[in-house]
């Protein structure tokens, strides 16, 4: 094995990929949440649809989309490999363990939270990504905002979306600052800033995401 491939398959190398893809997915969330927030202009989805149309048709965005899926897949594959190694590193469990004495539950449950996000993501792609793709390739008109209003009429859908973004929030609460630490960016002056920004990001972004189905279900936005 060459020195570089050894680097990527080592423990720290795999963590590097986790951290880097994590940060990349965080940057995607900023774009996603900003466009979502356009529905709160309450202009019948006019501005939102312009943005959604641009995202669906622009060639640069469509190439970026491939990168985004690769990022998600890499993040998941690395997580599965790391988790199976981590489980193998302790074949016999403790009879009495008290992990709550030294760490937060969500930092120990990243795999579970990630799985919940993935399950939510499958439904989410089916709801919005798939119809948009179909319309692009069949050259049909697609009103994304109308689609949103239609889908968020059902209670269970709204509930699943809210639970999905809560999982995302806790995943980010650990993942945001953790990715900086993994990349080696631990600094006396900057780490407190990263941690504070991470906490606010993990609260504000999921709240904006959750407000979308809630606002539509209750008819605050139409």
């Amino acid at each position, binding site marked *: 094995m060459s020195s570089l491939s050894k680097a990527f398959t080592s*423990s*720290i190398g795999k963590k590097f990929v986790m951290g880097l893809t994590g940060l990349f997915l965080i940057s995607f969330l900023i774009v996603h949440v900003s466009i979502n927030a356009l529905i709160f202009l309450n202009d019948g989805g006019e501005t939102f649809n312009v943005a959604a149309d641009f995202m669906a048709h622009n060639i640069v965005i469509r190439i970026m989309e491939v990168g985004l899926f690769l990022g998600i897949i890499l993040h998941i594959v690395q997580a599965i490999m790391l988790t199976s190694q981590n489980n193998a*590193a302790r074949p016999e469990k*403790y009879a009495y363990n008290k992990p709550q*004495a030294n760490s937060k539950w969500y930092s120990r449950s990243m795999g579970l939270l990630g799985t919940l996000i993935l399950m939510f993501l499958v439904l989410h792609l089916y709801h919005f990504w798939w119809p948009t793709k179909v319309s692009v390739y069949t050259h049909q008109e697609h009103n994304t905002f109308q689609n949103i209003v239609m889908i968020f009429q059902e209670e269970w859908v709204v509930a699943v979306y809210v639970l999905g973004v809560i999982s995302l929030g806790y995943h980010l609460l650990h993942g945001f600052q953790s990715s900086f630490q*993994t990349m080696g960016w631990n600094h006396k002056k900057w780490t407190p800033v990263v941690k504070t920004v991470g906490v606010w990001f993990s609260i504000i972004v999921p709240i904006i995401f959750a407000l979308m189905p809630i606002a539509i279900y209750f008819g605050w936005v139409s």
Partner: protein
Amino acid sequence: MSTGNMNLTLQVWRQKNSKSAGKLVDYKLSDISPDMSFLEMFDVLNEQLINKGEEPVVFDHDCREGICGMCSMFINGQPHGPKDLVTTCQLHMRSFNDGDTIVVEPWRAKAFPVIKDLAVDRSAFDRIIASGGFVSVNTGNAQDANALPIPKIQADAAFEAAACIGCGACVATCKNASAMLFVSAKVSQLALLPQGQPERYRRVQSMVAQMDEEGFGNCTNTGACEAECPKGISLENIARMNRDYFSAKFISEEEV
């Protein structure tokens, strides 16, 4: 916290050897002084077992003053017990209450196989340190003090990393049985000083490779190791090790 003498129930992991299966065994202890250390309490238990003609509990210990890193007990779900910044030998029975049940297990990790009862084989740590190799030092007379200027902040950070006693509590408490806090402390104590520079990038690569080979898990930054470390080794060391590792692998042209 107890002031009078105590009666306790111990649940101790008994395992004949590395191959046999172990189990928790109950022992009743009475009239335990709160001023005893946790290991002295085990000495009392072992004396009783010997008097009864039973096999005493095997546990690691040496200096009993918190600096050698030999004692290694997982007490009520925490390495070195409930108190911060102490090793098992410096934990006193006054930290417990009369009538308590205390569960004592060995460190559990694939890389730390149980030898017998509470004693585990931590030679994986020795092999990681050995893989770090040498540090270039000039022969001849000792250098004048302060011949090499080192900023105080740097010297302090190196010294704090060097405080690691290699007890393995970080591995024991980590949900992934990761040794990254230990390895990063050993990498940092030399990487921070001018004397450690010539072999800096070779050393971090060798030590991480050996750590992976020993079968330790991967760090997920839960911070449990830092919280349980009896010497307060900081997570900053793990970030430093990662930085040095990336520099070594992606920038340095030296192959290791």
